[in-house]
């Protein structure tokens, strides 16, 4: 169960990198600031929220929707891991 790629940091990072790279048409290093580099617009950020929720079966609510959580592949991976962990902790 723990080896499901959707629940490991590496698997999540790879899936997010693939999605973002395809949409912006460029390679995206995990630490690259997507907003500062202009790769991600506000509109695409909204798409990212919806995509992460669907791809990883998480709900991103309230303060978790802040821009910093979507700033880089690494930040998004951490967010998904944290929300996934919270889901498992409640015994889902």
């Amino acid at each position: 169960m723990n080896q499901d790629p959707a629940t490991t940091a590496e698997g999540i990072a790879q899936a997010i990198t693939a999605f973002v790279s395809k949409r912006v048409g460029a390679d995206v290093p995990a630490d690259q600031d997507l907003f500062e580099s202009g790769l991600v617009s506000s509109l695409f950020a909204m798409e990212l929220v919806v995509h992460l929720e669907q791809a990883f079966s998480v709900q991103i609510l309230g303060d978790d929707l802040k821009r910093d959580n979507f700033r880089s592949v690494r930040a998004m991976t951490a967010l998904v891991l944290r929300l996934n962990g919270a889901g498992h902790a409640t015994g889902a």
Partner: protein
Amino acid sequence: MAEQTSIVKCLVWDLDNTLWQGTLLEDGDVRLPDSVRELVTELDSRGILQSVASKNDHDQAWKRLEALGVAEYFVLPRIGWGPKSDSVREIADELGFALGTVAFVDDQPAERAEVRFHLPEVRCYDAGRLPELAALPEFSPVTVTVDSRRRRQMYQAGFRRKSAEAEFQGPSDDFLRSLELQMRIGRATEDELSRVEELTLRTSQMNATGVHYSSSDLRALLADPRHEVLVTTLTDRFGPHGAVGLQLLEKHAGVWNLKLLATSCRVVSFGAGSVLLGWLVDQAAHAGVHLVADFRRTERNRMMEIAYRLAGFTDEPCDCRAGLPEPAQEDVQRLHLLPAPCAPPPTMKLHTVSLEGV
């Protein structure tokens, strides 16, 4: 019978002995009565779309409509030899209209029966009733706005835009830039009030409070120097989108309260909500005030919350909150932002008023 008096959004016309007098393929020559020409332009000005379902040679019939000077009034014409019920259904599907909002006029009882049999929700009229059509309640919308008068042009621009997007290869921001979007944000005038009201009724999905403002509510606020009622319109190289956004702002010393932000669902894919917020944040930064946005979660406005949060609004406490009167409705959250100057969007050109001073 409520269904029977709801407004018709699209009227589908037969051609031979309905729109024009004569049978094109037999008589060669056909005549468009002045009264029918007037009816077509009248329905168009009321915002009722019109289309064609005719059994005819397509090229010949369309050429004749052009020669008669009325071709531009018809969207998505279906001219061919298939059943008319198929034509009517395709037109409704492509417009995204429920069949109960579509009407069909034909002089042939058999054609009306065929449409009625397969599509019982479609309202069918004998061509003999054309003289009374404009006076019927289902063809008489209560409010006719600037945008309803241009509705057909907006749909036609929409079709051209859609096919351009289908052909476009590459990142969607590049596609947005290729549209040459121009957004205008201005203070609402008396004339625009009906247009604004229509917007608050139609945009439940992107309405940040779920509160509906009637035109008399808004008229009262226009006269109030503390309030800004702002209307946003959008155009691109294909034509107008019409009024797509409404902001209602109450200015206090040190803090501006955004009481309503509504945008049309049609322009969500252009990022119009985020652009509006970005502009407002920039205005507040230059005026040196904090921003507090009212938000009431509904089942359909999640994208609006995401737009607020991504723009930097939070639940954080701030002294400025104390200076605001209680929200008009219960369960309204107030999201707070300390504004910083915000660069204009890369995907569209803005033409705006300044909110400072006043």
